[in-house]
């Protein structure tokens, strides 16, 4: 096993992460899950330091927030909200299917074959609709109701 591992080569590299190949829409959902995850992680590490400015007191906090009050930062925050909506709800789908739920009962492979990916497809569609709804709700708050 260990010996074989050393001989394996990831020939696709970055394309292997992002490309869907012959696979279905879940493969792109997987790539987007990773991309949003990396975006959230980057933001989160910066967020730890930004919120850490509260140690210096309320004035320091207010100054930090004022320096971030530009339309571009607001758009960036909205993107983070979108990433959270997608990564969170798609992650919930992945967790549920990981536990074997929403995949149907195991059965003999009788033609025409129906894989577990196809069995969970309606669930996937519902989750994507929920993601879209969350983005609309977030967009409404960020850009229409903003005080």
């Amino acid at each position: 096993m260990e010996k074989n591992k050393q001989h394996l080569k990831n020939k696709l590299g970055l394309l292997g992460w992002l490309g869907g190949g012959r696979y279905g829409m879940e493969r792109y959902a997987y790539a987007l899950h990773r991309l949003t995850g990396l975006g959230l992680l980057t933001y989160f590490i910066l967020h730890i330091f930004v919120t850490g400015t509260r140690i210096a007191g309320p004035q320091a906090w207010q100054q930090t927030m004022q320096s971030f009050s530009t339309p571009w930062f607001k758009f960036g925050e909205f993107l983070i909200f979108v990433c959270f909506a997608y990564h969170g709800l798609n992650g919930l789908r992945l967790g549920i299917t990981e536990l074997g739920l929403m995949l149907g009962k195991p059965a003999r492979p009788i033609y025409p074959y129906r894989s577990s990916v196809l069995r969970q497809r309606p669930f996937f569609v519902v989750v994507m609709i929920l993601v879209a709804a969350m983005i609309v709700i977030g967009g409404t708050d960020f850009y229409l109701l903003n005080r």
Partner: protein
Amino acid sequence: MRESTLWFWHLLAGAVILILLALHMTIMHLDDLMGLLGLSHGDPIDQKIVFARSQQVFFMITYILLLGAALYHGLYGLRTILFELTLSRTLERTVNIILTVSGLALFVYGAYAAAVIYLMKEVQP
């Protein structure tokens, strides 16, 4: 530690994040919608509101819990992505050490900040 145990903690941390980050996002970014429902009062990043929130035990504890869960979930996810590049054993060990040390350092700093701000008596409203 076994890989399946690390993966289980990754899923568990994801569930914790989903709950706590949904709460955080609702408070911080859906404040206008919450205001329409009478559940929000004022700008959530205003200094008085931020410090009043940070000095409640519930928020201090959930901030630290969210910090730990998000760091573990995020850095374990990054490790998974990097390991899929089929790294050498030496590189895998190096990645493990870098991610563990930086994760612990970020956790200590974030938890320290949350605790210090919680104990800042002079700015209590």
